[in-house]
């Protein structure tokens, strides 16, 4: 029961988990879509609104200066969380999707042109795929894919060097952990290869930042993005880390208040640093809540969270494999706590609706991986995704309900 250690000590921190759904205790296995919030995050957001709220960076009064301090402290917290050298390399966004759109729009427009290649993988979430399709269309660059092989989701990263040397690849954007396959890509190795070849890298850390140590210096990436709500923080807030040298001459993404140094009727000049990319009043309470969440995770320790995640993922893989007609995506070992599967001929929506009747929350669908699903000959899969507050007995309950579902739908 060693893996339940974190759940034993920390499950109680999450008020939402203590409830019955359809008459059974809630088993929340939809963490890859959104994680739940510990009471400290919920309380801090409420406290901020009760005691400190005002607009940031423009008021002289006490509340404004408190709110500004909290907001900038949150930036420092995110920088620490990612091991970034400077707070100025942290841009607050609405989430992973906006972070990628920002880079694709600002960096892409300035640095991409006809003949250039944007390289991504076939396992990317739509959020790390469509912005590049659009950037390619806008700039005349070409979008190319590193192929994914088989249900295990293997990418032959050894081909990268040849790919870089044989063609004018300008940017490589890829996910750290696949949200459907649960595989973990060797980020530091990939980024080192890219850097040797002068290729800019963007890492989608949506599924990893709250689940494992993620240090931008060690990974050696140029850009990295994640969302608050996938690591115990609020929705509507996320982080884009950018290599300071690249951010220095990057044009703004949106325009308005907060991001200017001076404006005339004819033109405007931009602030330096991350504020240039944060037009308008930011999601202050979101940043405050996110900082509380990141501190909470680091108090538990991300290495411990990673161990728990991997154990639950491996265990779920093993136990689900015993079901007749089970097809599981992703690698057998070295996997994150994300397990997508197809059970016999039962459609994912039917399976997820059935499981919900027993209090089990899962996701069913294409997980914003339509091209990959199509390539694997699947329309939709069910997905159980874990976090450190999940327990081994919850995996047993899932397996039990899947056995019932097999009988019910007559596989």
């Amino acid at each position, binding site marked *: 029961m060693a893996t339940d250690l974190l759940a034993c000590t920390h499950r109680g921190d999450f008020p939402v988990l203590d409830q019955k759904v*359809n008459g059974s205790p809630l088993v929340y296995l939809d963490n890859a879509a959104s994680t739940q919030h510990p009471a400290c995050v919920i309380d801090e957001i409420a406290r901020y609104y009760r005691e400190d709220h005002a607009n940031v960076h423009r008021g002289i009064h006490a509340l404004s200066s408190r709110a500004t301090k909290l907001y900038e402290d949150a930036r420092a917290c995110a920088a620490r969380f990612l091991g970034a050298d400077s707070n100025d390399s942290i841009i607050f966004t609405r989430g992973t999707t906006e972070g990628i759109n920002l880079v694709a729009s600002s960096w892409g427009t300035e640095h991409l042109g006809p003949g250039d290649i944007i390289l991504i993988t076939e396992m990317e979430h739509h959020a790390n795929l469509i912005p590049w399709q659009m950037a390619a269309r806008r700039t005349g660059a070409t979008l190319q894919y590193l192929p994914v092989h088989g249900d295990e989701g293997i990418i032959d990263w050894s081909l990268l060097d040849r790919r870089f040397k044989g063609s004018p690849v300008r940017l490589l954007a890829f996910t750290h952990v696949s949200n459907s396959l649960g595989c973990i890509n060797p980020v530091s190795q990939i980024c080192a290869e890219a850097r040797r070849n002068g290729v800019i890298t963007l890492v989608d850390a949506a599924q990893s930042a709250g689940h494992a140590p993620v240090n931008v210096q060690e990974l050696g990436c140029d850009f990295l993005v994640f969302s608050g709500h996938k690591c115990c923080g609020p929705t509507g807030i996320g982080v884009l880390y950018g290599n300071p040298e690249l951010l220095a001459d990057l044009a703004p993404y949106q325009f308005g208040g907060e991001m200017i140094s001076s404006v005339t009727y004819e033109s405007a000049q931009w602030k330096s640093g991350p504020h240039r990319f944060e037009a308008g009043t930011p999601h202050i309470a979101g940043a405050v809540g996110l900082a509380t969440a990141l501190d909470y995770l680091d108090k538990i320790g991300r290495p411990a969270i990673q161990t728990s995640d991997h154990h639950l993922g491996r265990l779920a893989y093993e136990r689900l494999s015993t079901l007749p007609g089970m097809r599981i995506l992703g690698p057998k070992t070295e996997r994150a706590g994300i397990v997508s599967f197809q059970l016999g001929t039962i*459609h994912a929506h039917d399976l997820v609706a059935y499981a919900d009747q027993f209090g089990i929350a899962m996701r069913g*669908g294409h997980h914003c991986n339509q091209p990959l699903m199509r390539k694997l000959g699947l329309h939709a899969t069910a997905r159980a995704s874990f976090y450190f507050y999940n327990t081994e007995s919850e995996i047993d309950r899932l397996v039990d309900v899947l056995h019932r579902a097999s009988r019910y739908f007559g596989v």
Partner: protein
Amino acid sequence: MEIDELYQTIILDHSKRPRNFGELPAPARKGEGYNPSCGDEIAVFVGESSSGTIEQIKFTGQACAICMASTSLMTIQVKGKSIAEALALKRTFIDFLMQEAAPATGLGNLQALGGVKKFPQRLKCATLGWHALEGAFKGRM
């Protein structure tokens, strides 16, 4: 259990053994339905008689049990009807699923889908085949 209201025996039967499953060659009309949230897709093929009634109807697709059963039952229920009658039945069916006391006139076995009322997130599944049917008539009315 509430789930048994959703997955009634007739629905499980039609989802496993969909009736009128397959394609019709041209000049049959084809309409398609697609649910972007789950990737489900249904194609409905309609062959009209000289008097404008639905003489033949078939469907193909990949979808959940609710969607497959609803489409399968639909093909049985609209066969022999005029296009206007089929579209009126579509409205009756959708009203039946969305409104508490809506009449079920002419729905026959489609009433087995009444459990969807308690699962509003499955409404799209239950109506996808019907939207494909309407698509087959596009440009015809």
